[in-house]
């Protein structure tokens, strides 16, 4: 049992479990202590110095973000001196920050800007001194402007600890301190996997998604182009946050929205997910029953994970599913199957993916296989935040839009397809179909509770036809090491494989926690977003990918069979080891 400590905040008695920080405890008395560097999702960095509070009886002020409440503490969260110091610190930070908010991607959605407004800072107390550090636009996914960086340390923490990528780091010290890959090289030459978790956690405009809204607006305006669009499962559960709605599934309004923005056809990546399952489950069945290639089979629909594997875990290439990610599948089919069927010149088709992800921006040019249609299969990727901005730019009253349907040919998805957006979702969808493929029978109980939830590594056993199928699910790239190490050890010692099937998502929570999703994500929010997807699944009449009539039609009319020649050519890819550092 955890001990409870008793203290006073602004004279009000509080009781909190031992170890609770003052910042957390203050919420009990309806106090939100201002802070800049602390992200609710991350451990305290204690770098900004704004959250100081006074402890009665001591001369010092302590940081609320990292100081645990102690028995008998008398905490004062604000008085004129505290407020003056906080204001001074904010002004100091501003003196080292380009105050061109109006031209910043984070304008109106910036934590520093918000604090500046809260503290009523209207003039410049200290002369501005900007560092001279070049911007880094090298990745095509994430834009880095170290001059805007306030050195809160969130991105570095996320990149090094949560993601274990170690692309970003601090260089130098004092006023020269900056964020950069090892030794001032560019991100594209570093191990960066473009997951965008840094951007999602950045409080200012220092790291943002590459803004492709301009490209998309231009394409929509271009009479020569036939603009089509698809949206990922996770987007529907988070776009509402742009308007203050949390955990609401906006699928049908989004379809309407995308049409109003000018897209000629609206597809759903969840349908692509259904196809992925057909291919991946077949691949699994083949590996399991015919031992064509080694087990475990590891999922490959997350491009950051793929990049991570190609850089850090090349020994796992043979275990990777060769199946492309769902949006790439929709992409290639839109410029082949759809184009043929509706007699549209595929060269005119401009395919846009709305994704929760920054990595997808990089994925669309990842290898020659991403041009399987003969054209670049996906022309542009927008992440959720960019779509939110486009809605505002277009002045659309999103919440009051009518509900519409997707274009049925690449839009009708099963319940299995939509849960792809959450950690464990791919696994669950795959198991549903794999069970059918292996046994020829449908599952009675379709929900696999044991693969759901936010535990960083989930290991479980599923019985299919008397066979015990061992599976593992990891999300957040640092969690994957444990799973891979187990596989590696088994390979090394020639013992029984620990798992048959492994799902990995780079971002914590899976795509619902993606790097392109609305800011200030917490586990609480991840759960709510995932819940919206799971209830979508529950409400669906069809909850198996292989039962989706449009999937059946697609294979009958066009692809043939899963893992068939055409499927292989259009829907599969290959992996090659990549150097960690190109410089």
């Amino acid at each position, binding site marked *: 049992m955890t001990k409870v400590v008793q203290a006073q905040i602004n004279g009000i008695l509080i009781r909190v479990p031992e170890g609770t920080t003052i910042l957390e405890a203050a919420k009990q008395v309806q106090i939100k202590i201002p802070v800049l560097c602390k992200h609710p999702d991350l451990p305290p960095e204690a*770098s900004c110095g704004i959250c100081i509070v006074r402890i009665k009886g001591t001369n010092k002020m302590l940081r609320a973000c990292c100081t645990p409440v102690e028995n008998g503490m008398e905490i004062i969260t604000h008085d004129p001196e505290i407020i*003056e110091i906080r204001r001074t610190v904010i002004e100091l930070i501003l003196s080292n920050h380009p105050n061109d908010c109006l031209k910043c991607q984070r304008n109106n959605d910036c934590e520093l800007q918000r604090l500046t407004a809260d503290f009523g800072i209207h003039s410049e107390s200290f002369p501005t001194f900007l560092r001279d550090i070049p911007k880094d636009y090298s990745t095509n996914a994430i834009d880095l402007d170290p001059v805007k960086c306030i050195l809160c340390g969130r991105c570095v923490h996320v990149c090094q600890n949560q993601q274990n990528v170690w692309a970003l780091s601090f260089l130098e*010290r004092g006023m020269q301190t900056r964020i950069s890959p090892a030794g001032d090289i560019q991100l594209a030459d570093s191990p960066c996997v473009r997951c965008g978790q840094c951007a999602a956690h950045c409080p200012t405009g220092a790291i943002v998604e590459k803004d492709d809204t301009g490209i998309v607006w231009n394409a929509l305006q271009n009479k020569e182009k036939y603009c089509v669009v698809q949206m990922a499962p996770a987007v529907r559960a988070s776009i509402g946050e742009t308007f203050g709605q949390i955990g609401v599934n906006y699928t049908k309004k989004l379809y309407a929205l995308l049409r109003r923005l000018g897209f000629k056809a609206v597809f759903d990546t969840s349908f692509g997910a259904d196809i992925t399952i057909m291919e991946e489950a077949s691949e699994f069945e083949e590996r399991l029953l015919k031992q064509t290639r080694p087990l475990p089979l590891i999922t490959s629909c997350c491009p950051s994970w793929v990049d991570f594997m190609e850089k850090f875990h090349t020994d796992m290439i043979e275990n990777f599913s060769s199946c492309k990610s769902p949006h790439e599948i929709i992409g290639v089919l839109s410029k082949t199957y759809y184009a043929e069927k509706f007699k549209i010149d595929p060269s005119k088709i401009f395919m846009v993916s709305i994704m929760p992800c920054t990595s997808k921006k990089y994925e669309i040019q990842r290898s020659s296989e991403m041009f399987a249609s003969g054209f670049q299969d996906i022309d542009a990727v927008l992440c959720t935040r960019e779509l939110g901005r486009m809605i505002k730019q277009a002045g659309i009253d999103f919440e009051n839009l009518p509900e519409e349907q997707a274009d049925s040919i690449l839009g009708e998805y099963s319940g299995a397809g939509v849960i792809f957006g959450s950690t464990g979702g791919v696994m669950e969808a795959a198991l549903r179909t794999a069970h059918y493929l292996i046994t020829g029978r449908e599952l009675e109980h379709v929900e696999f509770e044991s693969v759901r939830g936010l535990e960083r590594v989930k290991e479980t056993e599923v019985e299919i036809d008397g066979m015990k199928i061992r599976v593992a699910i990891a999300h957040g790239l640092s969690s994957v090491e444990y799973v891979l190490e187990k596989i590696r050890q088994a390979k090394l010692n020639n013992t029984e494989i620990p798992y048959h099937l492994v799902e990995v998502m780079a971002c914590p929570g899976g795509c619902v926690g993606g790097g392109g999703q609305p800011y200030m994500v917490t586990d609480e929010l991840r759960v709510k977003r995932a819940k919206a997807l799971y209830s979508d699944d529950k409400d669906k009449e069809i909850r198996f990918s292989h039962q989706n009539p449009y999937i059946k039609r697609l294979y009958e009319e066009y692809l043939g069979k899963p893992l068939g020649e055409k499927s292989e050519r259009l829907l599969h890819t290959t992996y090659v080891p990549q150097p960690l550092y190109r410089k």
Partner: protein
Amino acid sequence: MVKRIVLIKDTAATGPDTTRDFYNRFLDGIREHKLLDEIMVVRAADLGYYGHGLVVKIMPNNIVYHNVQNTDIERIIKSTIEKNQILDDLILNEKPKQIKVALRNCGLIDPENINDYIAHDGYKALSNVLLEFTPEKVIDELKKSGLRGRGGAGYPTWMKWKACRASRSNPKYIICNADEGDPGAYMDRSILEGDPYSIIEGMMIAAYAVGASKGYFYIRAEYPLAVQRIDEALTKCREVGLLGENILDSKFSFDIDIRLGAGAFVCGEETALMASIEGKRGTPHPRPPYPTGSGLWGQPTVINNVETLANVPYILCYGGDNFAKIGTNSSKGTKVFAVTGKIKNSGLVEVPMGIPLKEIIYDICGGTISGKDVKAVQTGGPSGGVIPNKNLDVLVDYDNLQKMGSIMGSGGMIVMDTDDCMVDIAKFYLGFCVEESCGKCAPCRIGGFQILQILNRITEGKGKIEDLATLKRIAVSMQKASLCGLGQNAPNPVVSTLNYFEEEYKEHIINKRCRAGKCVALLTYTIIQEKCKKCALCFTNCPVKAISGNRETGYKIDQSLCTKCGKCKEVCKFKAVSKE
């Protein structure tokens, strides 16, 4: 056969010949008394007394006479030398000002010879402790001694040890903080180089007391000789089983490794130091958790400064009570200071706590080298403050210095005379802190930088009177909102110089004048026409041709062209160039 040695030195600095003259007269006296075979008279270079006129020291009796006149020679010889009678009016009955505890072996023993250390009671404390003391008793003895950390903050050493001992997690670590980064202080280097074994013994006693099995020396890489001496000492200790398993046949096992710093002042801060040992950037972490509970690699850790550890064997050898007899109520024992700057005899002094600052400056170190007034004494290095001349009678201990707005710090003591500018000094220290800030936390990183910008402006004559308020505002935010001691204390030199020398700041701002003549931009060089001999040396030497005129009319400096390089003053043979 020589029976006595008489040393002679003029300590009044009246002139180089006084000693020689007196020496000759004294020699004559000895000759007259036919004592030449028995008495050796020697002119000393220094006898450690200042401002006492002519000093005569008679050995081996160790009699010291001061303010001796030529007329005293006869009676000194007759009474003292011939009859062993002491002349009460001449005797200097001064107890030695310095007491050497931490430095007890420095300069005395051969640091490369363990036997020499043992000869001076080395490892006596350890063998007592290991064979007869419980760890609790060791901590008790430390408590009795009242020893407080000599690294700066002055935290009671026994409390640190006790907290670490109480932590249940294992292993535990002892770290010797030898990252002496304070510019102008080198006490630790001196002990590391001069008495390495005593620090090792201190660490071992600490380890035994808290239950640690492993120790680290964290030494500045800028001290290669210290590293070498410690390394050799550790090797020797391992060779003779003073490190390793079952030391001195007890159940205690312990070993020590060296880790080098790499040029980061902030690594003197405990949490940053541990990060550095762990192979990371030396950025501090918030406390709590304190190192005694969760330190190096998350394990309970005691970090003690070199001087602290050097005191430990002394305490355990001669008793905590004996140690506690030295010093004041709240600050026991001695403190080593590195007295530098404009001081006559710069060096290390070890004095009992509570000694008047004056005595250190004048009696031990001989006052300023220039003979000018002491303007201020800076203690505590970049984290400390200045003590102005009027407060030189302050009794030096932790609490008094803090009351003065400075700190004890690690023991840097910089003496400044009237040629030193207080704004310039503040700027110097701020520059240091800005360069050494780890950059992690905003108040320290940017606050220090902005203060430095303001000080730069002031010393360049571009200051505004509002700047003083801004300085104070930033200083408060740094003191209160910085994460670690470096940032919290970085504004201290500014705050304390502003406190005592605000008028000097105002002079810089309003009158555009630096009374010490340090701030180059505020200087004006002019040719004093009355003294000028029109030799044209300044004219020909001015690198920017700011001097105009000819041998007939004389010369003038065009202030708009002058870069204040000082060349004209340097070359002028008639002191006809003034600088103000």
